[in-house]
């Protein structure tokens, strides 16, 4: 009996490993590599859904250069190892371009594979490391940490005239990168960073570190991590009666920040490129409405739209060059004379794949939870 079990399990192993995966296609394939499960699941599922919506709309208009577009999604679970597997799968399925991933780590891990396979990659990852290698396949659709840090420091020191700054980040590569950069820029402008610490994402209890910060009497608390912790930080700051302004970095710009912070959200500040609801463009508004109509929920964040913009720029380039050759598309994107009008503003890239120009805003959250722009 036992032998049979062992034998059949072995057979299963063999079969499973040899399952052929071959799809030949007359369609253009677009890959989505995103954290569909795991702790960033809502962002990952948002990217997946938004890409599918764009593609559906494009197919309804006759597809890309007459070809039908097919979306292939791979879950990277927010970890580098799974990101590598996901990327291999996408490469094998012969996708032309990959949208994602959401986190810098998962975008960085397979970067070289996409480069070697000549697959275009567009990600919202903001880690400066992503454009270090200047792979021709890579296009960042957001702005890097360094740009945001310069804006933040300038805003703090020259516009708000803060003297003492407390900086918090979590342990993610993105937040540490942004936190480090902001600290550096603030010190460059002569500001005093009285505290720089890290919180553990998802820990929820931040009162110890906030109490510590309270004793240092900073003018402002800046948090470079994600909304899920930022909202709680703000709420516990108010609860502990700490009289300092609260600024969240771009990853705090999520509808859930306000929900978490509750009444404390009012009077806190965020720094980001324009939020979805503030996007001034009509086609962006229409897309947001379409998304809400189709999926019955709001788009999770600006990151979703940035990723969608990456995809739209690639499709635009294919149509302009009348080519599906990734090299041709990349060359076009690197040398655009006239930027492509994206949902999130004009898009164009330098040779390293860095998105040119940045349009950061500082917002104050109003009592009715709307945003008021205080600095552009």
């Amino acid at each position, binding site marked *: 009996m036992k032998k049979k079990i062992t034998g059949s399990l072995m057979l299963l192993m063999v079969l499973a490993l040899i399952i052929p995966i071959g799809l030949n296609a007359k369609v253009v394939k677009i890959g989505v590599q995103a954290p569909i499960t795991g*702790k960033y699941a809502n962002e990952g*599922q948002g990217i997946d859904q938004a890409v599918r919506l764009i593609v559906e709309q494009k197919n309804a208009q006759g597809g890309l250069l007459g070809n039908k577009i097919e979306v292939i999604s791979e879950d990277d679970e927010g970890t580098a190892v799974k990101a590598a597997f996901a990327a291999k799968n996408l490469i094998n399925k012969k996708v032309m371009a990959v949208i994602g991933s959401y986190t810098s780590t998962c975008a960085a891990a397979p970067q070289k594979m996409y480069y070697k396979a000549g697959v275009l990659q567009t990600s919202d990852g903001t880690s400066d490391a992503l454009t270090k290698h200047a792979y021709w396949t890579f296009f960042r659709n957001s702005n890097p940490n360094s740009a945001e840090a310069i804006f933040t420091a300038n805003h703090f020191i020259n516009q708000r005239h803060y003297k003492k700054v407390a900086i918090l980040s979590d342990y993610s590569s993105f937040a540490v990168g942004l936190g480090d950069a902001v600290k550096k820029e603030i010190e460059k402008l002569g500001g005093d960073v009285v505290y720089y610490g*890290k919180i553990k994402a998802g820990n929820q*209890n931040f009162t*110890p570190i906030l*109490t510590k910060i309270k*004793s240092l009497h900073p003018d402002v608390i800046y948090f470079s991590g994600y909304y899920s912790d930022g909202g709680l930080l703000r709420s516990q700051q108010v609860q502990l009666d700490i009289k300092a302004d609260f600024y969240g970095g771009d990853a705090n710009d999520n509808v859930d920040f306000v929900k*978490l912070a509750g009444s404390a959200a009012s009077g806190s500040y965020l720094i980001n490129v324009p939020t979805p609801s503030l996007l001034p463009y009509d086609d962006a508004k229409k897309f947001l409405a379409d998304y809400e109509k189709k999926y019955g929920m709001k788009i999770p964040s600006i990151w979703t739209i940035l990723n969608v913009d990456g995809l739209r720029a690639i499709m635009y380039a294919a149509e302009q060059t009348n080519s599906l050759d990734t090299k041709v598309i990349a060359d076009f994107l690197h040398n655009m004379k006239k930027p492509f009008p994206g949902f999130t503003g004009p898009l164009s890239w330098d040779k390293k794949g860095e998105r040119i120009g940045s349009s950061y805003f500082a917002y104050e959250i109003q009592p009715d939870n709307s945003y008021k722009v205080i600095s552009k």
Partner: protein
Amino acid sequence: MYIFIQQVINGLTIGSIFALIALGYTMVYGTMKFINFAHGDLVALSAFVGLTIYTTVVSSFSNSIIAILISLIITIVIISIIGYLLERIAYRPLRKAPRLSAVVSALGAGMVFQNAIMLIWGPNPHYYPADIIPNKIWHFGDSVISLIQILILLLSFFIMIGLYILVNKTRTGRAIRAAAINQDAARLMGINVDAIIVIIFALGSTLGAVGGMFLGMFYRGITFNMGWNYGISAFVAAIIGGIGNIPGAMLGGIFLGLFNSLIAGYISSTWADAFTYILLILILIFKPTGILGERVAEKV
């Protein structure tokens, strides 16, 4: 000084929630001698169930406090039933099996809970409404304490007193203690050990459900994977106190909460975890069965 007082208040609040959850680990360990790794995820599940019930019933009550009490009771009932089913399905068949099999079964059950939450409520965080407990703050000099913190401290205190009386002063409690020392002997003395185990799972789930809803009310945001963090912390608290030892879990929870606060406040938040676990390891090196110890009888 106010910083210290503030850190103590912070630590006591989170510590009493740790203690409530740690009791669930310790009671199961006491009788069944295995770590119920699914307990943390059960706590997360109760936070979600509690919120759903609250949003359903809140409109029927004028007072949100009554609504939250009603939801708490319903949640306790539901989670206790789930706790019972967990024991019945995933653990009872393994009573005679090697202990590690039950541990793996518990890990599997935790995975089921976590993913079930994600499938039912979605991957996005959910939020307890901000107005459940009035947002009231008292000042002592520069230290502050909020109404919700006072409520958590008081309720946890009374629950733990109640549990202590139940275990030490009642017939059921005596049976629980007897089953913890020796199941076979207890059975011979006419104690229905199966029933005791059901009671223990129901009690542990009840405490976990209270802890889960406290978390929701205090921090508001709840996520499908939150159970893991609290589970590990509470489990560590149970170990520090001496696993299987009920006052030990209470002490361990409070101790861990305070320690976390003071470390993050006075030494380094960046290394808070490392300090916590170094402390844990040191405690175990010098007190190999936790602060209050565990009853271990090795037959020679």
